[in-house]
């Protein structure tokens, strides 16, 4: 039985703050589309999306409060995905 552990209850206030931050980041990502960064636009968009994902994973998905194993697993999967992306582009660029 593993149910006797202390659970962390996330307060409503924290969740409202998280939502406000996420909406502000969304507004920023729409606004920066109007600016001209050349090839950097996609990078900026992905950095913003990455930041939003981090916030969703850490607070809404409770990774911040879970056992260390959970964030380690999630990080590993993200790294695996980035490696696949890298290898695919490596393949396409030099074939």
């Amino acid at each position: 039985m593993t149910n006797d552990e202390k659970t962390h209850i996330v307060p409503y206030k924290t969740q409202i703050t998280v939502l406000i931050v996420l909406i502000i980041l969304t507004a920023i990502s729409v606004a920066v589309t109007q600016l001209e960064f050349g090839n950097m636009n996609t990078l900026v968009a992905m950095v913003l999306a990455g930041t939003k994902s981090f916030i969703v994973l850490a607070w809404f998905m409770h990774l911040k409060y879970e056992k260390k194993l959970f964030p380690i697993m999630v990080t590993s999967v993200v790294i695996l995905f980035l490696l696949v992306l890298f290898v695919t582009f490596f393949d396409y660029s030099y074939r």
Partner: protein
Amino acid sequence: MTIHRDDLGDKFGMWLFIFTELLLFGMLFVVYAVYRSMHPEAFRIGGQELDVAMGAINTVILLVSSMTVAMSLTAMQKGDKTKCLQLLGATLLLAVIFLVNKYFEWGTKFEYGLVPGSETLQELGHGTILFFGLYFFMTGVHALHILIGIGLFIFVIVKVKKGDVHKTDYIWIENTGLYWHLVDLIWIFLFPLFYLIH
């Protein structure tokens, strides 16, 4: 008699499932990245055909629904069944609104003939065909996940009402919440990659 429960194991299993989902969508994003690098101009023009306002509204709807489902867990952990049900109901409603928006959005694309296999699209060239093919497939698979989410919310609401899910046994809310946040996470990437192409 005590019933054996393993909440940590349940949650672990849910995360493993989420990883398979991340890789499913991840590979679609890899396909997207390769095609976009091959047809940057067609993807840029294709992106401008999409309704940024509609996409942004749906983004906010999903973000708010992510918050309400997270709050429903807090409510249940505090033992407030009524509030938990209200928040789950709100999440369900937001999920339905998202799909209704999607219906109108897709409808407009169909009107203009921007549908895979249409004559209009054939004339617009290879890159545009790939863009709209990916747009419909990826937002379609995502919409399917929303639909499954709606089913899950109805199921959990019934469970909460019947008292199967209560103050000390709320793993159903927790795992359904995790699923819903995943759906939100995927949209966080779909939105800029399709609607906000510069």
